[in-house]
């Protein structure tokens, strides 16, 4: 008997396994719900371990992924930094161009509104090395028709007058200069006087009034009077900031803030000639 089993052990084991599997399949098919419950029970028991393993696996996977991404990110950061630099420089360039455009538009508007006037555009190329003399050098000279005494203006108002020329450049004395004198009048009250450079640091002007009791108040606009041999009438000089009695109280002097921003004086117009008796509208608006 023992010899028979031993000889046929493999087929017997295979048949038994098939029988057990068949019985198991048949039994579990019949008690399906309990099998699922059992499976759930096992799942519940091993779930902490499963979830821990899953967590660890996920972290390891993401860590490996992050290490891989580091090289990509580094490359992307360099690219983004380059783009940012490019955008910043473009932004700066744009703001500079916008400012330049605004100035040039102002000059064009000035030229358009001054029909009959001969104006020559020029750029400021240098300033006086001494801070108490306010002169600038422009890049137009005798060959362009610029002569001594010609008025220099910008859309915002009066800049000064030409005091010396070379064939290719001209020196312009700004109205801020202590030696500059411009015949001026208050637009509201028509009080007349002379505008002089007052303070090279604050950049304000001194308006010495002729009348003993002139009618002038802070906020008044001051324009060229036309009595000057250099400046056409009606050009905006600035706005009255304060009024005070001069020495001994005989006359009054007003402090005038110039309409022109002399810190940003890059392009100007030289008045080559203008029809006598005509005047420009005093306020142009400049940047529009």
């Amino acid at each position, binding site marked *: 008997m023992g010899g028979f089993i031993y000889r046929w052990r493999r087929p017997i084991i295979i048949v038994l396994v098939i029988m057990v599997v068949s019985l198991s399949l048949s039994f579990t098919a019949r008690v399906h719900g309990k099998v699922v419950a059992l499976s759930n029970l096992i799942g519940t028991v091993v779930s902490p371990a499963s979830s821990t393993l899953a967590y660890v696996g996920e972290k390891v996977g993401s860590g490996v992924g992050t290490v891989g991404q580091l090289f990509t990110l580094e490359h992307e950061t360099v690219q983004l930094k380059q783009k940012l630099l490019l955008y910043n420089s473009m932004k700066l360039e744009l703001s500079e161009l916008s400012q330049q455009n605004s100035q040039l538009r102002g000059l064009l508007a000035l030229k358009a509104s001054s029909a009959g006037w001969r104006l020559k555009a020029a750029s400021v190329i*240098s300033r006086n090395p001494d801070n108490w003399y306010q002169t600038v050098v422009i890049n137009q000279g005798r060959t362009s028709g610029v002569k001594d005494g010609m008025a220099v203006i910008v859309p915002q108002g009066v800049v000064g007058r030409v005091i010396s020329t070379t064939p290719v450049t001209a020196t312009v004395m700004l109205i801020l200069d202590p030696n500059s004198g411009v015949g001026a009048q208050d637009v509201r009250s028509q009080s007349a006087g002379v505008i002089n450079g007052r*303070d090279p640091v604050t950049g304000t002007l001194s308006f010495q009034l002729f009348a003993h009791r002139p009618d002038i108040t802070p906020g008044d606009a001051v324009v060229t009077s036309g009595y000057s041999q250099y400046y056409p009438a009606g050009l905006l000089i600035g706005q009255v900031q304060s009024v005070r009695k001069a020495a001994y109280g005989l006359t009054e002097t007003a402090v005038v803030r110039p309409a022109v921003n002399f810190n940003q004086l890059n392009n100007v117009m030289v008045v080559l000639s203008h029809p006598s008796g005509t005047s420009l509208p005093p306020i142009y608006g400049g940047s529009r």
Partner: protein
Amino acid sequence: MWQFRIPTWIILYLLAILVETALLPQIFPVGWVPNLVLPVTIIIALYETPRRGLAAGLIGGLMQDVWAGRLWGLNALTFALVGFLVANLESRIVRDNIFVPGLLAGLAQLLVVPFQWGVLHMVGLHFGWSAFMRPLPVWLLFSMLVTPAIGGLLGFRPRHEVDRKYARTAMSRSGISRSR
């Protein structure tokens, strides 16, 4: 040896005035533009005899006066005095390439502005004292920083050091030629 030649000084002053009139006004507002002739005068005078220091200041000042086109002599007188004083002081104080030029520039700036205010007052230009002095702190700081920087950039050295170097070079050359 180039640092002791007058054409070198003229070129340096020319560059300084060019920068001062064309470049610095783009950075500093009207009335606040610092002077560059002063630092150059101090750097030159630091390594010169008082007489040559005076000459250097005179040249620089005169160039600025001619450039400005107004009171000829105002800056010439001022910077000639500065050059003379700096060259005189140089032999009495410790030699240093950063602090001494900076300190001397600061002191010179402190003296120059009131001196020029006085001269302008005498010739009839009556500027308000407070308005005239307002940019002084900016100019003081500028000259104290820029003077050592210009000195370092130019690499100026005392005459005896330069002469010794040339003498050594000449001796070694003559030694080589003798041995040959």
